[in-house]
């Protein structure tokens, strides 16, 4: 849903590999996880625990809590507030997560 302003320049930037629901992708380093997920079109990021409605980032500045995903086993992490890291395991959420680990 998002694209680089300058794709030639973007190709020369350092990248890291992250895993979205087990699928490995290379994304530009030094950016918030949320923008990487937008660029990968990995939407919706989650289905709500209340009604199962699809959601995706709204504010990208830490106030809306719409961009929650599971990061390295930790549920409900604001993806706009963490930077991508090499090997990061990201899982999109479906409803209320189970306490104490993945299904």
């Amino acid at each position, binding site marked *: 849903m*998002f694209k680089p*302003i*300058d794709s030639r320049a973007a190709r020369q930037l350092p990248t890291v590999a992250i895993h979205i629901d087990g699928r490995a992708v290379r994304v530009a380093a030094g*950016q918030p996880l949320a*923008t990487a997920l937008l660029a990968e079109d990995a939407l919706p990021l989650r289905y709500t625990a209340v009604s199962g409605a699809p959601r995706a980032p*709204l504010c*990208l500045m830490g*106030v*809306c809590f719409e961009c929650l995903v599971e990061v390295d086993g930790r549920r409900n992490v604001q993806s706009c507030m963490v930077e991508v890291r090499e090997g990061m395991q990201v899982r999109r959420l479906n409803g209320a997560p189970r306490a104490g680990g993945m299904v």
Partner: protein
Amino acid sequence: MSAYTHDLVIIGAGPAGMSAAVTARQQGLSVVVLDEQPRPGGQVYRDVTKASPAVARLLGPAYRYGNALARRYADSGAEVRPGSLVWDIAQDLTVTAQQANLSFSVRAPQLLIASGAMEHPSPLPGWTLPGVMNAGAAQIAMKTSASIPDGRAVLVGGGPLLLLVACQLLRAGGRIAGIVDTMPAGNRGAALPHLPAALGAPAMLAKGLGMLGTLWRAGVPVFRRAEDVRMEEADGSRRVGAVSFSSEGRRQRLDADVVLLHHGVVPNTQITRLLRVAHQWSDSQGCWHPAVDAWGETSLPGCRVAGDGAAIAGALAAEASGAIAALGAAVAVGRLETGKAATLAGPWRARLSRQSRIRPFLDALYRPPAWLIDCADDTLVCRCEEVTAGQVREMARLGCQGPNQTKFFSRCGMGPCQGRMCGLTVTQILARSVGRDPADVGAYRIRAPLKPVTLGSVAALAEPDRITLPPAG
């Protein structure tokens, strides 16, 4: 009560926080800055220290200005703790924060809250659909990852930031399918009396006119006085596909891949509400702001607020109010004489007054339309707990006089965003439903944690030796 660890604790490393740190260090105060982001800048100068020359050029001189401030801040000698999530502040100003899931506390006789602003909520039908974002979010994506919406973007709302984002997207090669201007017809007339004062800020007015010119030359369609705006899902796609609205008596529909909403910015009062300092309601901006004196001090002694978190006036004003609050803190801890502080504050006050001159004009011109808050019964107001405007009105009919009883009855505001996204809307809907002033209706009581933290990390604090400061940096 814990001992003092510093003279001044600053929360937030945007223009106000950075400027306060620089000024306080010049007066010899020991300073610690807690900021949630990995790099300084706040939202306005987000990632300015690492932006590529191309991105910096695209975002313009007002953005690049932040680089020099960030450099002074880095050299100031303040203890800098990026990636710190502040989650509790006690009445004795003990600040508890987390870095990497580990909590620690700092405490100083002076606390400066410089946590900035957020965008006014835009509770429109369909605003929870993936692909609908705040306009500010598009700008943050440019700053943090040099990316822009792919495909057709439609901007909805009004205000200087909306125009700026539109121009920046155009310059970055984005496609803008239209601007759905929701500013009501009456705003221009209401703004007119404030125009003479605004003419005292010719550069800012010229910038505004310049942006309008850019959009006009680019042939971006602008739909004025839009009402009844709805975001529609593209069939079965689980994301937005179009925006429909009425403009000048005609129903319109624009296909869109991304919709960017903006109805102005408002102080983020989560921290000042936690501290229960006095707040005032601004009718013209439809928001709360903490009441502060000339040195930024709130009704809680030693607790100051600077920047857009106190009153919306922009980055240059935030830098000034941060410096002034730091001078106030220096006086309070006995490092600076009152007369000297007044002299040092002089140029900053002059800047503040210059920057504030245009505000009444902008506030009137871009006052969000009343229908935005008078939203239809089926519109989601609380995105987290999925509570509609109609349910909030039903709570008012059940006798809920304010947001706290409404929250208890409906779960509105109980989700992870802790009422940030719905607070202003709920206060205003209730005010209209019960026929009272928003100032009397009040706001959500904010409690720790300011943001969700894991129970394990809180439990770890039960072992006293764990409440120590991890190394800075």
